[in-house]
């Protein structure tokens, strides 16, 4: 591993993080409108299985991705429907769905275990791939990776530059005020939760059709859903920061592989868990950065200020609290 080149490393971070980008952006939509979809881990696995099965049966990758997205949307529908219209706890339903979808994926996917199926091929972008360094890192991937870039920019633009985005954010912050302005809060929350679920489903499809091609038990994407949920917090529910978090985690994963080749006696699983304590550490930092004493200390250390400002975030005020009109 001594001869690994930086651009290859960065390129694998970019392609490895693509599903995480979709999943985290999807969850950002959901949480920004005030709903927590905790079922991500199960959803990703179930949609990975379904999209692989569909792509295998139809020999059509588009159908596979569509199926994965639809599965994600369906699971999100259960979360949204039971919480918005039946008043069930979002956390409870999400958690049950996490476990159930995972088992459902193993159960239904049994006959698709360890078989060769279609997978996304590379599609280097003409001209752009010729750009030195950046071309290698960003423009020699499959189409879904390029779509993930587009998704980041589009989500940011949607949130902060359109009226719909403003509406979305206002509902997440204060559904009551939004309701008095005449917005149909529940319908909008329902819609964005489904959209978020669709993106999470796409993430699952990307795992089984590109990043970890094929299906099996374990598939290799277990635990990713939880990571995605943590990244959304880390990124402060802001699309750009969330995407940065996804790439950062992708980097940690790749570094795990690199480190493992340096210390081969330590099992791979140990490196795979390394990002989790780091995530916790960062979440603690985020919390501490809100303390008054820390802020006073920062006045004396202007160089550190941007870093802490980056970490200082507040969740959407109505997150997880189902709004009932009076």
């Amino acid at each position, binding site marked *: 591993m001594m001869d690994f080149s930086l651009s290859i490393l960065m390129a694998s971070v970019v392609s490895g993080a693509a599903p995480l980008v979709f999943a985290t952006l999807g969850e950002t939509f959901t949480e920004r409108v005030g709903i927590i979809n905790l079922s991500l881990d199960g959803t990703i696995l179930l949609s990975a299985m379904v999209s692989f099965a569909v792509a295998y049966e139809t020999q059509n990758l588009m159908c596979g991705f569509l199926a994965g997205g639809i599965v994600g949307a369906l699971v999100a529908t259960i979360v949204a429907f039971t919480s918005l219209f039946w008043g069930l706890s979002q956390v409870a339903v999400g958690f049950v769905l996490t*476990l159930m979808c*995972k088992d459902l994926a193993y159960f239904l996917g049994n006959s698709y275990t360890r078989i060769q199926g279609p997978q996304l091929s590379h599609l280097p972008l003409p001209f752009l791939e010729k750009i030195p360094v950046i071309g290698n890192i960003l423009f020699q991937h499959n189409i879904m990776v390029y779509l993930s870039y587009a998704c980041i920019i589009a989500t940011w633009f949607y949130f902060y530059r359109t009226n719909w985005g403003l509406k979305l954010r206002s509902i997440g912050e204060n559904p009551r005020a939004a309701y008095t302005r005449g917005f149909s809060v529940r319908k909008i929350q329902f819609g964005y939760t489904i959209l978020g679920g669709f993106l999470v489903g796409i993430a699952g499809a990307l795992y089984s059709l590109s990043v970890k091609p094929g299906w099996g038990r374990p598939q290799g994407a277990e635990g990713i859903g939880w990571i995605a949920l943590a990244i959304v917090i880390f990124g402060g529910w802001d699309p750009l920061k969330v995407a940065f978090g996804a790439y950062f985690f992708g980097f940690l994963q790749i570094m795990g592989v690199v480190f493992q080749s340096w210390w081969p006696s330590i099992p791979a699983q140990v490196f795979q868990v390394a990002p989790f304590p780091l*995530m916790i550490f960062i979440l603690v930092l985020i919390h*501490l950065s809100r303390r008054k004493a820390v802020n006073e200390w920062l006045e004396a250390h202007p160089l550190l200020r941007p870093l802490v400002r980056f970490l200082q975030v507040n969740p959407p005020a109505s997150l997880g609290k189902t709004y009932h009109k009076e």
Partner: protein
Amino acid sequence: MGHELKKRLFAVASRWFVTFSIVILLTTLLLLATGTPPLEAYLLLIKGSLGSWNKIARVLQVWIPLTLCSCGLLYTFSMKLWNIGIEGQVMLGAVGATAMLKWLSPYFAPSLCLIAAFVFAMFLGALWALFAGILKTKGGVNEIFAGLGLNFVAQGLILWLIFGPWKRPGIASMSGTEPFDYSLWLPTLQSLRISPIALAITVILFIATVIIHKYTRWGLFFRAVGNNPTAGTLFGLSPQRYTLLAMSLAGIMAGCAGYFQVTGVYHRLIPSISSNYGYLSLLVVMLANYKWKPIPFIAFFFGCLNVGSIQLPLILKIDSSLSGVIQGICVLAFLCAYRWRLRNKG
């Protein structure tokens, strides 16, 4: 009074009837969709779990950790805490038990080692839970993420131990550490693989949990602080202290479950020592509607599903994860049925 009781019984019965109808309907549809004869699958689940004393003993083997973890979760749920980290707490209990047995067995009598292991397992379980609790109270990390992160760390720790310091002489493999000497196994009933000691301790801890919840000041405080942290503060009850207390009690229970997994079931440390019982017990408690009464029965039912499903891949060529799907549908259907009744009432 009699009329009132009848009404309540009817309500409970109708809720369970609706739940099980939905479960049977959905599971049957699922089985038909995969081309499996549903009746055969159900019979296999029943025969595979209750068909012989040996199988019932195995169900009880699952019942023990499920009941213990569920008891632990009663404390944290009464404080409105989502202790997903219970899975890792079971693992740390198992690590603690293994460590004591490994370190002490050359020097002390087996019974002494077993007792030391019991205490240390509960200690480590509680410690792991306290980490999550402190992260929640002092670090502002939601207990779901703190617990979950610690679960993954615990899994990494177990793998490192199995492949590193505690590896089998010669080879390190996923099959776990070297099995303990027979003298360090909890004694079992003849020919059945179930330890009466484990069973007895579980029952005692269950009763203790019920007593703490119903009759002690602690139980009252848990509910008071859990229901309204600000009111609790007004009465001089610190939410933080009770959060940590509830977490450590849950950790003790989980650590105990881990201890029985090592000394009563596997007799060594294996990578999947917790067997997802922590996560599963979250479902048990949800299905029990966060009350203690139904817990032993639901844990037994879930145990039956887990043990019965082991035969599915061999005979019907379907994945054993069917049990997990049924358990999930149970909880979802119950939540909906419960809500439905509340709505109709209100």
